[in-house]
């Protein structure tokens, strides 16, 4: 029995969510009274996992340098089988949710994503996860010898616990893909929805794409990602990958600011697990006020530029 923590990397460095997954894995191993190892691909700074209590990292330095679900799943499955791994811990990022099902089938492991706490029962292992797109929680038992827990994004948090961390370089012979990457386009220098601490989101209340500077200016001050409601992307005001909600991207950030968004059930479901929600809407009856922590009743065209200016001043003070 042992725990294997799967951390993500990009451009030869750990991704931010590695800290939370590592924190969870270390806490799980302590509860199980067993050892834990992390596995990372192409991350020059893998020793930094020592900040979160990880003492051992298996670092795979061959195979595709970009995230490749098939190649990575093959490599991890082989490592898990060779090292008597009983529990695998992954994040619930889009990449992790691409990888984990492949791994689960290879290892014949039960897999539960969106887990929000450490297991409440160890035998059978019982975890609490979100279901119905954040409209409920469910307690799920894992019935297999080997199992996979997907930690919900921003659900468990980061535990600082600095230890010495040793990195073992390993070669994964089977890190081979059945897909070829033709191209990748990714915005640079801008926060993305999955990775940002703050998301600023605009709805139909903004009247048209020409007004999106309101959203972008506010986002810039907050170092936030921009997002939008579904009709906004349907009408082509913003690109599809900004659409958040039940049928769009999930948002699980520290601060979500909704501007000119009514708060339809399908929108709320996808953003509800954010820690703090702020709504700016001219209609006091907008359903979003029932889901938000803080609200401003007012015209976005007046409130948002003012808020942006005030935040600029606030940030300038440090």
């Amino acid at each position, binding site marked *: 029995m042992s725990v294997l923590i799967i951390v993500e990397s990009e451009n030869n460095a750990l991704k931010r969510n590695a800290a939370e997954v590592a924190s969870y894995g270390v806490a799980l191993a302590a509860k199980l009274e067993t050892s834990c190892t992390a596995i990372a691909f192409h991350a020059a700074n893998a020793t930094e996992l020592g900040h979160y209590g990880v003492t051992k990292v298996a670092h795979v330095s061959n195979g595709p340098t970009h995230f490749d679900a098939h190649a990575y799943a093959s490599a991890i499955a082989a490592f898990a089988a060779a090292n008597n791994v009983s529990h695998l811990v992954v994040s619930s990022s889009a990449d992790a949710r691409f990888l984990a099902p492949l791994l689960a089938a290879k290892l014949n492991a039960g897999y539960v994503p969106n887990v929000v706490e450490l297991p409440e029962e160890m035998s059978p292992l019982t975890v609490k996860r979100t279901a119905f797109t954040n*409209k409920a929680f469910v307690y799920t038992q894992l019935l297999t010898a080997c199992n996979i827990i997907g930690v919900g994004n921003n659900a468990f948090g980061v535990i600082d616990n600095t230890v010495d961390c040793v990195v073992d370089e390993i070669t994964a012979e089977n890190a081979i893909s059945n897909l070829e990457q033709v191209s990748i386009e990714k915005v640079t220098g801008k926060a993305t929805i999955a990775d940002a601490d703050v998301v600023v989101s605009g709805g139909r209340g903004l009247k048209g794409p020409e007004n999106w500077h309101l959203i972008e200016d506010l986002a810039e001050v907050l170092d936030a990602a921009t997002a939008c409601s579904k009709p906004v992307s349907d009408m082509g005001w913003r690109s599809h990958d900004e659409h958040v909600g039940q049928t769009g991207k999930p948002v699980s950030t520290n601060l979500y600011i909704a501007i000119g968004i009514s708060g339809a059930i399908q929108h709320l479901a996808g953003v509800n697990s954010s820690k703090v929600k702020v709504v700016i809407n001219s209609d006091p009856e907008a359903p979003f006020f029932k889901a938000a922590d803080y609200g401003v009743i007012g015209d976005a065209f007046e409130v948002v530029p003012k808020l942006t200016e005030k935040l600029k001043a606030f940030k300038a003070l440090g």
Partner: protein
Amino acid sequence: MNILVCISRVPDTTSKIDFIEDDTEFSIRDVQFVINPNDEFGLTRAIWFKEKQGAQVHVVHVGTTKSDATLRKCLAIGADKAFRIDAPALDGLAVAKELAAFVKNNSYDLIIAGRESIDYNGAMVPGMMAALLDIPFVTNCVGLEIDGTTAIAEREIDGGREKLKGTLPIIIGSQKGLVEESDLRIPNMRGIMQARQKPFEVVPAQEAPASTKDIKFERPAPKAEVKLVPADDLDQLIDLLHKEANVL
């Protein structure tokens, strides 16, 4: 080209989520079940291939007779044949095993599933199927072209897109963007009439065991009242976000 679309059946997005039997069971009272929205995008793309490049479109579902109306709707939208694998959908891995066995006994060039079911948000069945069948898989798929035996699938990633190339057969996890919402098909009278004549087969199950079991549901804690800040006192909002919420 033979296309298989995997269909899951979920509560309509506006359904009230409620539990019974001491919160051990999801209450289906007043709940309307629909085709999982992500699968609807996939089915529409499959019908596009049928019309533009020529294809047979089959739909498959692992479930009980309760789902028959959902499968009939897929036929009315334009699928050619429906299969129901006769087993309750216990969990993702069990469903994937049933589907993988079904695919092995038949021959498909393209298998389309949804990125995730919007009820339990598993996002696991198609990837598990792909690993069981050892064929390529692309999820969060927002673009798909097939040329001969080559598939080019585009995947939405955080902050962008990735284009991947593979050889058929391939499995994709579809979502909005694969087709536009305005292109979704709504069954018309003719489609509904035709659906009655289309083949609908019930397939015996492998009875794959479950790897997980849901034992109890919980409602989220009731939310505290929103704190309203006057529009002319935004300093107060910044102060609250900074000192009380600790997010600035």
